[in-house]
Structures are given as C-alpha cells and as structure tokens.
C-alpha cells in the first residue's frame, strides 16, 4: 500500500464574479442590491493523489486554476464540492514574507510567521538559529524589516518557510526572486527537502523545474485537469500544445518582423534590409521556428540604386548576450543587386538553436564597405519540442551504444596493468 500525503477527489471551486461590489450600506439603500453575480468555476472535478515524499507539479497557463488548486490544498479556500485529505503538516509558500510586519524586527517576525505557519513556540525557538543562518542577513536580524531590501525580505521569508521542516511544502513560483546566489540556494534546498522525503507541490511556469524536480504533474486547462501523469510526459504534451496554439493564434503577416527606425542603421544605405520573414518546414510564414526542424529565413531588401557586389549576413544573439552564430552569403561570393525590392533566402536543414528568444542582426557588406547594418533589430523566437538539452545550440552527433571491454573487472587495476605492460 502506498502512503498518500494528499488526496483530492472531485474538487471543484466556484467563485462569484461581482461586476461591482456594494459593500457600503448607502449603495445598497440607494441603488439596490448589486446585479446578480456571475458564477465562475476556477476548478472543476479535479482528482489526483500525491504520494508521501513525491514532488508534484501543477502547470497550465495563467488563469487555468493552478493557484486555486494550491489554495484549496493549503486550506485557504474551501472547495465548493469534493474532498481534500491532507496528511501531514503543511507549509505553504504562496508569497514570501506574507504576514511580516514592518515595524517588527526580523527575529520577531520569524516568531510571528512561524506561529502563522502553525508551529509551537518551542519548535520556532529550535529552528531560530538555522533560519537566521539560512537567510544570511547578518546583524539586520534585529532591525525592523521595513528597512530591509526586497532581497533580504524574501530571503527571510523563504528561510522561515523551509527551515520549519514542513512535511508537505506548497510552493507557488515564489522561488524566482532574489539574486542568483539565493535562487540557487533555494533550489538546492528544495532538492534537499525532496531527498529527505518532504512532499512538495509546486506551481510553476518553468518546464525545466517540472522536469528536473517533479515526479508527477497535472496540467490544468480552464479549471480542468487535461493531463495527469509522469512529469516529463505532461510537460511535453503541455509544451506541444502551447507551441501549437502560438502558431495558430498569431496572425501571420508577410512582414511579420518589421524593421525598426532606419535612422539608427549604420552603413551607406544604397541597399537596406526592410524585414525578416521566418518560413517553417512547409514554407509557410510563421512567427516562431521550431528547434530541430528545417526552416528558411528570408531577408527582404530595398535597393535605392543598383550595387555590383553585396554579401548578406545574419547574426544571432542569445538573450544572455552570447553571439551564437553568424552565417553570411560570402561563401558563395558577392552578388549584384538590382535597384528595387528583392529578397534572399537562408535555408536551414535543421535549426540547431535551442528554444529561447534570440536577437537578430542583419548586414549587407562588400569587402570593407558596409551598405547596411541593423544591430539586433529583429527578434527570433525558437520553440522546443519538449526534448530540450542544455546549452544554446544542439550539437549534431550520434550516440553509440556503450561498449564493455571484456576482462577489465576494475578500471583502476586495469589502468595500472596497462601502465606496467607499457613499461
């Protein structure tokens, strides 16, 4: 028999949407009762169970009911119908430092927050030093929190919530705050808690976190569970659906990526790039390109006068600033360009860029001369298929099956033997 930490059966949550609230008596008297509120089902018939020690991810778009689910699990909301059974002490991390009082010192706030999270005085005292140590805010611990920087504030909030050794931890995306060092500390701590057997329920938009941290996940869509299962599978179907929607939702305009103000351009200007167009596998214009798929990047240009020699170039820069690639048409030599409109295609067999947003620079040059240079004027969004690897680009290559070398039982010994044999 498996040990269940959280069990949710047919959970539904209804809210009443008031177009206007009339909480003041005068308004009620003068204008009558508010118009009948509309009902809104934030959660509909959701059932799942989470085993003790498992990490469970909730994903979905904004407004899909993730946070409502978390609040129902944390007991903040009562379900309209259905059952939630939670076995274990819950610490909910829906907002870091919620309940901190500005006038109180860090230490006093730890006591208050600990009590709000349901701990006894003795438990809080026992954890006090650990919390102060984890927050790493030094002597500020005895100053009122209103003078804290926002980073110190969230560090203390996180430290209180996780150092109290919860049996079940509910986290709502709050970890994406603070400086990088603290974020890493938070993730390390989440992994550590998971290892120790803490049940974690995580609401996040980060598919990476779902894949790395979660065992199981539920994908919520308009308050209903669309898919429930192993975290990787759910994340993959989710990303596939989001990509699909994005392609269909955005109106495709041939000049989908318009050039910005040409005044900022460099170069002599006889030929200018007017727009970039991204074509997918089937040659259809698309606002996003799919990693790993064939595509075409079409550079539209306008020549004020004809030019005898021109080389076209593209530069791809990652959000992080890294210059990822810079292909140019110099490989097949300079080309003459006639006066008027035109375009040149850069055909890619397999897009090696990893999912993300890239800035694109374009250039038209000839030996030392620059006709046109648009510095990071265009954007390129690359979507993944779910099978993401780390890094900015994919590395083409083929993995072979592992080879066992017969007779070598222990590697170290065999190396020594090899050395000796060599002598």
């Amino acid at each position, binding site marked *: 028999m498996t040990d269940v930490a959280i069990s949710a059966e047919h959970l539904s949550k209804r809210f009443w949407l008031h177009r206007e609230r009339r909480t003041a008596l005068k308004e009620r008297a003068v204008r009558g009762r508010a118009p009948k509120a509309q009902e809104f089902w934030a959660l509909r018939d959701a059932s799942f169970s989470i085993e003790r020690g498992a990490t469970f991810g909730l994903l979905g778009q904004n407004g899909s009911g993730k946070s409502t689910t978390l609040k129902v699990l944390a007991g903040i909301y009562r379900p309209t119908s259905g059952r939630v059974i*939670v076995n274990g002490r819950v610490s909910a991390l829906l907002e870091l430092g919620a309940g901190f009082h500005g006038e109180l010192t860090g230490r006093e706030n730890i006591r208050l927050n600990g009590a709000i999270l349901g701990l006894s005085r003795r438990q809080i005292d026992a954890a006090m030093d650990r919390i102060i140590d984890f927050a790493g805010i030094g002597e500020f611990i005895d100053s009122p929190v209103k003078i804290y920087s926002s980073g110190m504030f969230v560090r203390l909030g996180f430290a209180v919530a996780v150092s109290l050794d919860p049996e079940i931890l509910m986290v709502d995306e709050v970890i994406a705050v603070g400086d990088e060092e603290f974020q890493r500390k938070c993730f390390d701590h989440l992994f550590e808690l998971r290892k120790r057997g803490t049940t974690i329920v995580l609401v996040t938009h980060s598919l990476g976190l779902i894949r790395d941290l979660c065992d199981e996940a539920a994908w919520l869509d308009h308050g209903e569970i669309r898919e429930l299962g192993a975290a990787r599978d759910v994340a993959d179907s989710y990303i596939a659906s989001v990509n699909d929607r994005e392609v269909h939702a955005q109106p495709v305009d041939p000049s989908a990526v318009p050039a910005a103000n040409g005044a900022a351009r460099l170069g002599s200007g006889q030929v200018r790039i007017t727009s970039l167009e991204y074509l997918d596998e089937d040659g259809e214009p698309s606002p996003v390109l799919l990693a790993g798929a064939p595509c075409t990047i079409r550079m539209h240009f306008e020549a004020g006068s004809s030019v005898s020699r021109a080389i076209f170039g593209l530069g791809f820069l990652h959000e992080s600033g890294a210059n990822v690639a810079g292909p140019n048409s110099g490989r097949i030599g300079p080309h003459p360009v006639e006066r008027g409109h035109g375009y040149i295609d850069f055909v890619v067999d397999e897009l090696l860029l990893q999912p993300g947003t890239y800035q694109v620079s374009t250039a038209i040059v000839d030996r030392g001369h620059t006709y046109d240079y648009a510095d990071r004027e265009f954007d390129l969004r690359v979507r993944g298929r779910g099978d993401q690897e780390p890094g900015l680009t994919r590395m083409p290559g083929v993995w072979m099956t592992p080879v066992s070398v017969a007779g070598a039982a222990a590697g170290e010994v065999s190396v020594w033997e090899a050395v000796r044999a060599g002598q």
Partner: protein
Amino acid sequence: MTTTARPRSSIWSYRSLIWNFAQRDLKSRFKGTALGWVWSLLFPLATLFTYSLVFSVIFPAAPPAFGNGRPGFFPVWLFCGLIPWSFFLISLMTAIPTLLANGPVLQKVYFPSYAPILGAVVAILVQTLIELAIYAVALIVFGDVSLSWLLFPIWLAIYVAFVTSVAVSLAIMNVYFRDLAHLTNVVLQLLFFLTPIIYQSTSVPAEWHHIPLRAIVQLNPIAGFVESLRQLSYDLQVPSLSTWLGLIAWTLGAIAMAVFVYRRRGLDIGETV
C-alpha cells in the same frame, strides 16, 4: 459532500498564534515613539484627569462613599467605570479593521479568521490589566479592600468572553459591510452616555417624557458590567444573583452570535478580503 484541507483544531490549539498576534499588536503600537509603553497608560490617565476636573471643579458631583465607609474620592470611582469601558471601546476599535489589515496573510496561509481578532483583544486586555492593577493599588491606599474582591476573576472572565464575542462578530461582518466600522463609532459614542460611567444609574430619572430612561440604561449590558465591577471592588458588595445571571445571559448570547457569524461568514475570509 466537501472536506477541506484545514486541520480540525480548537481555539486552544491556536493559543500560540493568538498570543503572537497580540504581541505583534503590542510591539508595533508604540514602536518608534519616545515614550513607548508609557503612552498606553497616559491615555486613560488623561481621560481620568479631564473628567475628574470637570466633575470636581466645574460641575461638582459628590462621589459615593467607599465601601469601607470613608468619604469617596471621585477619580477612583470614575476610574472603575472607565477601565471596563475603555476595554470594550478600544477592543472593538482595533478588532474591527483587523481582518482587512491582515488580508494579505489570510489569502496566503490558512489560519482561522478569529485568531487575529482574538490577538487584538488580548493586546488590549494586557493594557486593561495594568490599569486594573493601578486601580487596585489606589483602593488599597484608601483601605477599601474586602473579600468581595475574590469575585473579580469571575467577573473578568465573563466580561472578556463578552467583549471578545462582540469583537469577533463585528470584525467578520465588517469585511462584508464596511459601513459597520463607522456605524459602530456612532453607536459607541451614544453608548458611552447610556452607561453609568460618569454618573450613577440611580441619578437617572426613572421616566422622562414617558421614556423609561433608567430601565434603558440598566438594560445596556455594559452598564451591568460596569456597575457590578463597582459593586464588588469599590462598594465592597456582592452583586446579586440576578445581576450575575444577567451578565452570563448577555455573554452566552454574544458567544452564540459570534459562533453563528463565524460559521456563516468567517470561514471564507481568505477569498473575500
């Protein structure tokens, strides 16, 4: 059928949280002020001084004699009325907005909505106990002490239960009807003069323009609490059984109301504030 994820616990199990809320209220109230805690005593003392001045110099009023037979001393007699009144007044004034003030936490963590209200009342109670101690010292100085003081803890327990229940009802209702805070202010002003604090209930005319004024004053529950405290501490008399039963009846009514309001409206504060 619904089951919530909330722990099934009693008020007693939330005592640590309630006390923490009380401590927060106490600590934050006078933080940053030069006089700090002293302010909590200066306020009632200033009220006491003002009324004493008015009723011993401008409208001289003879205070009733002490229970030990000595001539009465007006400020002490007045203090005995002001202490329970201020406890009631300040408890309501601080408790009513407390749920709205705690809205952000109530939306992020589950705890029963009565906890911050009870915390607010406990914080005021601490101040009231200090005032009561000063009052007791004054009575001891005048030698006005007797066994009737032993009833004081019972009186206090009933009164605290009454004030807390009224505070819980009003604070929860205020989330839904924000006029309540202002309405309460008006009613409290009226109630002050309907309560025998600066006067004796016996000096109220029994009937005035066919309005049974004294009966109205005596029906007011705060009047019952104020007069019974005066009886057992200043007059050194044991309040009658009917007085006790009256106080208990009011308190049970207030508790029933608070439980009703909490069950009806207090469970979903997290999605309303």
